[in-house]
């Protein structure tokens, strides 16, 4: 049964990540301390997120040296699972007690809040139905195609066609590779689910730090799961969500720099910051100022005391060095990868035309409008590349903050500190990247800002005086928004019918995913191992892994060479060893126009294998061509395939 395979794979690998985290934490602080420092749930989430960072880095190093084989991956995963389970028994028991206490607290609350908690849980569970979500977009171009190649070839090299893009951090992609190795791409797509759950736990833990009660935590969850910037990433194969828990964990642990867990907190802040930046480079801009502010805030009492100020500055400096050390350690695999593959450890920085820092999405007028309309643009915007919004509840509840009691010392309030650091991070982003309105690029920091409306809504709901209009308004707003977001996401993100049909075998992958899958299945069925396919498309995920390794790279493009006659273009394809041509007429129609398939050269016979709404596939049969073939695809280092001189 497919569902059982998905559950076992997902649960097993999540356990491996958790185990890796527990083993690493035990090495850092010792076994006994694990259950003493923070709540069991927070420690479990910390371990899982930490393990994700560590294990992805390990896979990256193994893939770089070509050792990413099933035997090694299974061996390491097994050690992590067993070690983690052995070391964390008391933690699981404490977690059980914590869940029971949450349940008891919820049972004693009013039925209205119980209903809201139930709806939140339902919206969270709906992520499972993303298995039935048709697969298309960026993930089928790169984020899921690269893992397929890594799993099949046991190594990491730039993905043909996206050679320049492989320089990004590959945290999510390497996790996906393991699922591909286990032949469970559906579990790979679902892996963001436990990931965002761990992120949610970290957000709630920060919420606890800033004074959020249990009801406030439920409100925070409602805000999180009604943010389309979060739920649109469910099951779409993109990797933006992997940075979220890492970033939130860094924010959480920096708040512990003066606790008993100081030593661990500093290391973890560094590690999590590094992993988060590796997972999403854009986080560096928003997290760096925020983390720095929170570091100073941690030492505020000493810094404000003139007699201790000098010593406090030294302590901040030492703490900063420790954080940077952790950050560099966690970034090291990424730097090594880019040194080896691009001869530039800090790529994409320093590579002309490839740095995200050079992004410009809109002209001056639109950019001004975006900047002036923050935070409304985050909630109501549907700009190019935005890909989701922040919950309308955040805007709706924001004015409630004026009703929050003013802390006696504003500077001492953790809520003020966290919101200020997140706000400064956001401000830094708006100043440096004004035209890039993409919540997913800075999601961890944006989610921190949700804590203010959540805290305000909780406070008002508990302290509203007769007539309790605001409490009723808050409850209605949450309920209506959750139902609306659920309905809006139905058959956009959540596909319960498709999921059921897919899991019961009534629907196959291509019926779910559509034309691209069907067209590529035709090639997969006909092509021999290592045949070269010329892809005049962005998307490629469904091709067989051997074919994916042999497709055209950016150097083989025949598009845009205006001096070539159509016969010379066909000859170029032949010389480079291509036996199949697939073109997306909606995006690469010019390729077919230039090739003129209706009048091929005499030495070429074109066999139309597939023609659909937007895709055309030909098999190229050559008969006594004028020159010889120059390139072919071979297994030089099995099981990997390489394009080589013939």
């Amino acid at each position: 049964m497919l569902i059982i395979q998905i559950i076992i794979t997902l649960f097993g690998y999540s356990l491996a990540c958790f185990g890796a985290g527990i083993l690493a934490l035990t090495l850092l602080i010792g076994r006994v301390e694990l259950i003493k420092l923070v709540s069991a749930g927070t420690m479990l989430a910390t371990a899982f997120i930490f393990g994700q960072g560590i294990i992805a880095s390990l896979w990256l190093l193994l893939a770089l040296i070509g050792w990413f084989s099933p035997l090694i991956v299974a061996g390491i995963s097994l050690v992590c699972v067993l070690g983690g389970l052995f070391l964390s028994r008391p933690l699981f028991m404490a977690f059980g007690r914590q869940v029971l206490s949450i349940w008891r607290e919820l049972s004693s609350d009013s039925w209205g809040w119980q209903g809201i908690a139930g709806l939140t849980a339902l919206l969270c569970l709906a992520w499972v139905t993303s298995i039935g979500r048709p697969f298309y977009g960026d993930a089928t171009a790169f984020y899921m195609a690269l893992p397929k190649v890594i799993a099949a070839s046991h190594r990491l090299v730039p993905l043909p066609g996206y050679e320049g893009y492989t320089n990004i951090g590959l945290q999510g992609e390497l996790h996906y590779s393991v699922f591909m190795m286990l032949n469970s791409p559906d579990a790979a797509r679902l892996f963001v689910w436990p990931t965002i759950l761990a992120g949610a736990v970290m957000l709630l833990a920060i919420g606890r730090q800033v004074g959020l009660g249990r009801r406030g935590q439920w409100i925070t969850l409602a805000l999180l799961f009604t943010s389309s910037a979060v739920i649109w990433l469910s099951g779409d194969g993109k990797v933006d969500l992997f940075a979220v828990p890492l970033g939130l964990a860094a924010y959480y642990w920096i708040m512990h720099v003066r606790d008993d867990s100081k030593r661990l907190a500093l290391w973890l802040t560094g590690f999590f910051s590094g992993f988060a930046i590796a997972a999403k480079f854009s986080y560096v801009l928003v997290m760096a100022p925020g983390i720095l502010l929170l570091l100073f805030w941690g030492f505020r009492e000493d810094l404000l005391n003139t007699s201790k100020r000098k010593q406090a500055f030294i302590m901040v400096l030492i703490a900063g060095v420790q954080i940077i050390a952790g950050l560099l350690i966690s970034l090291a695999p990424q730097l090594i990868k880019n040194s080896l593959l691009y001869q530039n450890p800090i790529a994409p920085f320093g590579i002309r035309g490839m740095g995200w820092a050079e992004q410009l999405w809109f002209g001056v007028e639109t950019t001004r409008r975006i900047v002036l309309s923050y935070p409304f643009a985050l909630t109501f915007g549907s700009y190019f590349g935005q890909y989701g919004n922040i919950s309308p509840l955040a805007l709706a509840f924001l004015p409630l903050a004026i009703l929050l009691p003013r802390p006696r010392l504003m500077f001492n309030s953790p809520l003020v500190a966290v919101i200020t650091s997140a706000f400064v991070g956001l401000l830094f982003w708006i100043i440096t990247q004004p035209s890039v309105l993409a919540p997913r690029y800075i999601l961890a920091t944006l989610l921190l800002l949700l804590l203010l409306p959540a805290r305000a809504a909780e406070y008002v709901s508990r302290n509203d005086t007769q007539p309790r209009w605001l409490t009723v308004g808050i409850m209605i707003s949450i309920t209506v928004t959750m139902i609306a977001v659920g309905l809006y996401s139905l058959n956009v993100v959540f596909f319960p019918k498709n999921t059921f049909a897919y899991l019961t075998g009534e629907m196959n992958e291509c019926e779910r995913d559509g034309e691209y899958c069907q067209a590529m299945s035709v090639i997969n069925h006909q092509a021999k191992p290592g045949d070269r396919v010329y892809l005049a498309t962005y998307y490629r995920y469904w091709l067989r892994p051997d074919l994916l390794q042999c497709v055209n790279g950016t150097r083989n493009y025949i598009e845009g060479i205006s001096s070539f006659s159509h016969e010379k273009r066909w000859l170029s394809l032949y010389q480079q060893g291509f036996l199949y041509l697939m073109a997306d007429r909606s995006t690469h129609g010019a390729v077919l126009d230039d090739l003129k398939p209706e009048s091929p050269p005499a030495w070429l016979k074109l066999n139309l294998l597939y023609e659909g709404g937007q895709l055309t596939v030909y098999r190229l049969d050559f008969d006594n061509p004028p020159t010889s073939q120059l390139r072919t695809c071979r297994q030089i280092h099995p099981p990997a395939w390489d394009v080589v001189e013939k």
Partner: protein
Amino acid sequence: MVIQQAEVQKRPIPIAIKVIILIWMFAMIFTYHILFGSQEFWSLMQRLGIDNILYQFNAWLQPFFTADYLS
């Protein structure tokens, strides 16, 4: 560990403030629905007979929050 926040004494919330905040809350939720509302939302508005005016509001509002690449 929870860091306790020092809070001053609670006072009743003035009715006027309550009304203003309530209007704001519903305005935000309603605006979101107008921009991203599901089929069910528009069916409901149609039954209430206000779908046309809301479509017009949508057509006026949408350009403030939409733009194509490099526009």
